[in-house]
């Protein structure tokens, strides 16, 4: 599991992020999120706002986003709520990164279905590139996190890299994706199995076979 404590509150951190403010586009998006809730309940919008702020930090740094303490404070001020309440949310959800990130955030699923389908080998692949769980690799390219089930068990094993899922991975396929990302390309997202489109049964359907070509009323057979 990643280190879930916030990056230390140093003068350098304060200097770099003390002046943080939403860009006009993000501000508009934040205000849209706030407007979803009744007046006086603006703090309900804490999650979208933290995420917008995290994305903006990532854009400013050219890395995956994360939340320095002054940015959390900015969001809390923006919503007129106690900072500790914002910090509670930021530390609770894994989608908020509390430490500086590499350019790409590699989140490999290690839950049972993925593990049975070979996620250990995916981690080995990552380690060989200098990644360590919860740390930024020396080249600044990667942050590796082991995550729990991402809901892609039918196409296990999988990894979520930045905002995209890459499924049906093997060490070679993951290597190819990471190479492409390192080269600044955008590899194909979703399943990497040739001939497979999404999460349809590999090797053809085994159930409801009568429905493959046309709709079929099974009710009379129950």
């Amino acid at each position: 599991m990643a280190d879930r404590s916030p990056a230390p509150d140093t003068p350098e951190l304060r200097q770099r992020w003390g002046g943080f403010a939403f860009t006009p586009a993000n501000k508009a998006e934040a205000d849209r999120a706030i407007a979803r809730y009744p007046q006086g309940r603006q703090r309900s919008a804490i999650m979208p706002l933290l995420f917008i702020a995290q994305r903006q930090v990532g854009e400013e740094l050219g890395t995956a986003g994360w939340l320095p303490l002054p940015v959390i404070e900015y969001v809390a001020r923006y919503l007129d709520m106690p900072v500790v309440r914002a910090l509670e949310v930021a530390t609770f959800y894994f989608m908020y990164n509390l430490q500086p990130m590499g350019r790409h955030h590699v989140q490999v699923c290690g839950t049972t279905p993925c593990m049975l389908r070979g996620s250990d080998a995916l981690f080995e692949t990552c380690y060989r590139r200098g990644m360590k769980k919860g740390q930024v690799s020396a080249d600044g390219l990667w942050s590796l996190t082991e995550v729990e089930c991402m809901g892609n068990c039918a196409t296990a094993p999988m990894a979520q890299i930045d905002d995209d899922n890459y499924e049906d991975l093997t060490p070679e396929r993951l290597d190819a994706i990471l190479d492409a990302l390192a080269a600044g390309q955008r590899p194909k997202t979703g399943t990497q199995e040739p001939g497979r489109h999404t999460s349809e049964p590999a090797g053809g359907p085994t159930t409801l076979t009568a429905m493959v070509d046309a709709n079929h009323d099974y009710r009379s057979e129950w």
Partner: protein
Amino acid sequence: MPTVTVDGQQVDVPDGATVLQACELAGKEIPRFCYHERLSIAGNCRMCLVEVKPGPPKPQASCALPATEGQEIRTDSLMVKTAREGVMEFLLINHPLDCPICDQGGECDLQDQAMFYGRGASRYHENKRAVSEKYMGPLIKTVMTRCIHCTRCVRFSEEIAGVDEIGAVGRGESMEITTYLEQAVRHEMSANVIDLCPVGALTSRPYAFEARPWELRKTLSIDVSDAVGANIRLDSRGREVMRALPRVNDEVNEEWLSDKGRYQVDGLMHRRLDRVWVRKEGRLQPASWEQAFAAIAAADPRGSIAAVAGDLVDCETMFAARRLLRALGSDLLEGRQTGLVYDTSSLAAVAFNSSLSGIEHADAILIVGSHVRWEAPLVQSRLRKAWKRGARIFIIGPHWDTTYPAEFLGEDAAVLHDLPDAVGDVFTAAQRPAIIVGAAGLAKGALHPALALAQDWTLVRDGWNGFNVLHMAASRMGGLLLGFAQAGGIRAVAEERPRVLLSLGADEMDYKPFAGSLKVYVGHHGDRGAHAADIILPAASYAEKDGTFVNTEGRVQTAEAAVFPPGDARADWTIMRALADVLGVDVGFDSFAELREAMIAEVPALSSPGLIDLGELPRGDGSARAAGVISYPIADFYLTNAICRASPTMQRCSAELLGNADMLEAAE
């Protein structure tokens, strides 16, 4: 009113009650950690599991389950027993076995409930988790490894104190209770989380490793740090008061206590006056009682003696002084040391008539010149409750950090005559409007204008009296009852140029106008009054004598002596009695019982504990004008009286929480 069956016993429970409350009504004890009567329901400790039919066939958390008609509740079934054992086992998985070095030992909910409801032994052999230390300020000591995440402290600071400072960061096993960036908790009731904490995670820092609960003698007392008169228990060992804890009294302090009331007690061991001093050749020098008494007699106090009562004295002390003065043919009694002058012809006009528990039902409140948060933190928590119930709160005076939304109307007391129409509309429409006049308001002459407003807004109506004066001194109401008020205030006393000034622990007054008087200080701390005195007679503090106190709402309460006064110090009334002998007058009592009897004969209101009937609220003098920029009398919440100024804990609080470090150096 639903009827439920608890262990075969039928009970009627009020609407909206929970299953836990139903069980308590039936006399069943339900173990709990997170549930607390005065906090919101969290339902996260799972210790209160019971079996409820109808419902899913599994144990249910009784604290968060509403009691409904026809429920069958079992608290004694095998399912409940194993459920409690299971929960207890989980709670103890990560709880260290450090009870022998834990300050909570002996008064720990977890310890007690593990004994009653836990399994005999642990089956857990893996490593326990450890949590790094969290700093929470000079009052709260934390050992967060012991925390069981009941979140009572989080809920207290959010709901009661109104200062969101404590939170639970992280999740699951890595959840930790902390303040933001481990800053000190900054509010006036912060130490109540120590009482709330069911385990030893939050303990008292000044009291750390000082004593065990079973070595302490417990004495019922009254807090003197403000005029609320919080009910406290003084825990003493030998001659030392080790700590003060709040007692439950829903009418006064619920079960909270301000940090000052709780932690000023270590000042009782510092800078005490424990011998007689007489000023000779400009310097205070040790002397005997006889020498001091002879010096007083030599000044010929007959007919020319004044008494000024300090903020911490009890009614008995003031009555003894009054008897002595009357016997000497003088009536120069005054208690309002700082020079306040207000009309005391009717005590109903200077009392907190709504009562402390009543003010939380007010729906519109106007505060005139009171920094309530510092002058009476316990009233502040009531006002916050009123706001939660929908009250609108307006304040006249300089801005201070309220813990509820309040509208500041202006700094000048004259605003009282020129209130915005919107404010007037709120009060005329209100069901239970209230005015609270503070000391700073009284100083600017706001009493009569406020009384006039009380007329306009009909503050007194069926079952409701919304006119309140919030005093700051524990002795004030008692002093007013005993006639410690001159029409001209303390200035009039000085103008009489008494040959002898009897100062009953008066530390906040200006002694310069009394330059020609022999200043006799009867008190317990070497503070401002003692510095100015010519003769110092060492007396007992509130912890060392029996006494009667009347709080700002006119509630008579009695305190008992917890320890003996140090050295030569004596209970104040015995000093008056001895002085009477030396001066050749009769005060009419020879024992404390006789003194109390004489006091009750003269002021029958003091006879029994409870609220005094102060009579009708008088009409305000419509021509009186309030004017002047209000300035609050308290500059430093933690250093308001002689005891807390001597207390190392209060000095540390002042330095650290209010940033008055220079004051700390001056005090050392």
